[in-house]
């Protein structure tokens, strides 16, 4: 059995970070170089966007619903039940919409990308593509990055809306709140900075999901077991990085848009 070497581990970690940085950088610079794979971008947009719609709708709806249920319980103690719409709206748009959508899409698509590219890597299909004169970072990575960023943006908007709808159903049907009051409160509480914060996050999260998924896929080795390992690592890494980056984006934007 080989003994664990901290120096080897450190070297490998630095190499992995270097590889990831290069891949992420290339995925962006490829946008300004020919050829551009529009058909692949559309195909990925369909897979990532339309394919993720059911889980995003379900997650958004029930998150909004449970948020209304929980917050109503607390707000009722202070006689502020009418603020339920405001609370659901701010929570969904600023935080839960983008983060939960990001996590759901990470679970579904970062794993899909890692396993697809990983299988191609271990069966020499990536090498074959390079041998045929095609740059895999242009053909495989950039279309996934573009599609993830664009589709996550729209999926987050859908999630926010469906979450508010879930909250409104609970508020009107279970809490007996007025529907107009709920939507007015939800709408009026939103300021530019809330919407901006909620819609800038999916751009970063989409980029993280695609680059992490592709990075682990393209580094896969060791047959089907290696592909499985890459898939798991991609989901875990993408989810954790989304949560960490979310904290820093929030902190950064709060410095720009101080709380009223």
């Amino acid at each position, binding site marked *: 059995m080989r003994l664990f070497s901290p120096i080897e581990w450190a070297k490998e970690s630095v190499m992995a970070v270097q590889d990831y940085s290069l891949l992420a950088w290339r995925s962006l610079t490829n946008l300004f170089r020919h050829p551009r794979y529009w058909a692949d971008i559309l195909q990925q947009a369909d897979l990532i966007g339309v394919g993720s719609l059911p889980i995003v709708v379900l997650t958004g709806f029930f998150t909004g619903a449970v948020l209304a249920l929980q917050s109503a319980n607390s707000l009722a103690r202070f006689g502020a039940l009418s603020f339920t719409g405001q609370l659901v709206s701010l929570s969904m748009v600023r935080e839960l919409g983008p983060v939960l959508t990001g996590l759901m899409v990470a679970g579904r698509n970062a794993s899909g990308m890692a396993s697809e590219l990983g299988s191609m890597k271990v069966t020499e299909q990536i*090498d*074959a593509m*390079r041998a045929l004169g095609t740059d895999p970072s242009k053909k495989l990575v950039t279309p996934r990055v573009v599609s993830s960023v664009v589709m996550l943006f729209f999926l987050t908007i859908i999630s926010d809306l469906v979450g508010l709808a879930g909250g409104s159903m609970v508020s009107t049907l279970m809490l007996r709140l007025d529907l107009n009051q709920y939507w007015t409160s939800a709408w009026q509480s939103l300021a530019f900075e809330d919407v901006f914060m909620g819609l800038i996050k999916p751009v970063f999260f989409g980029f993280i999901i695609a680059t992490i998924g592709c990075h682990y896929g393209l580094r896969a080795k060791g047959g089907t077991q290696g592909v499985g390992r890459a898939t798991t690592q991609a989901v875990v890494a993408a989810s954790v990085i989304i949560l960490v980056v979310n904290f820093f984006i929030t902190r950064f934007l709060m410095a720009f848009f101080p709380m009223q």
Partner: protein
Amino acid sequence: MTTSLASPQPGTLPEPPRKTVVFEDVSIAYDNRPVLDGVSFTLERGETKALFGVAGSGKTVILKLALGLIKPDSGRIFVLGTEVSATRERNLFEVRRKIGMVFQESALFDSLTVEGNVGFRLFEEHCPIEEIHERVVEALRFVELEHTVDLFPAELSGGMRRRVAIARAIITKPEVLLYDSPTGGLDPVTSTTIIELLVKQRDVYKTSALLVTHRLQDAFTMADHRFDRELNRMVPVTGGAASNLHTRFLVLRDAKKIFEGTAAELVASNDEYIKEYLS
């Protein structure tokens, strides 16, 4: 940076380099274990070079180095006048379009049909669909698999996959072909069919080729057979004519080149290892 072996003089037509692949003192190691140690050789235009050696002796590494898929630790590699060992990945794709590679396990794209695989380069170059279809069928006819156009790789046998990989490699009429164990794991009949295709490619299109193989009989068949266009099959060549077939042998042992020469020279070698290898 791209370095050229021979730059054409201004005002003259560029002459294709006579040497298609040049390895100069190339070394590479994995996990501190040398895989190639100071290996040098040249592949002339129209020549086929068969690379021999036991498993793990670095034969496949030579092909991957020639394609620029991996970089050597030291030494220089020129392919079609470009120093691939010193060229950035981004600039290598142009050179790779002039090279055809048949991978050991075929490496067909499993989510594309046979047509998608064979015509991959043409689709990438945005050729008209009708032209792509025509050329795909022509390439598949060369390997006698034109009926498989709409099938997926998973629906083909191992030998058929290997022949589709050959069709994919030759469709753009590359100047250099790299074959990685094209007959490995196949039955003798299918192996002979594939070797016949390689002989046909060598004699009809005069393509330079590096052939990695474990099967001595495959390389010897290539060395003493020529393709007869009228009979549409390969026929044996005897006597001095065999030396015109441009097939040479290179043997690797312990990361070093220990032999380079013709079939006759290989058989006449006094090297104990080669004698044992041939026996």
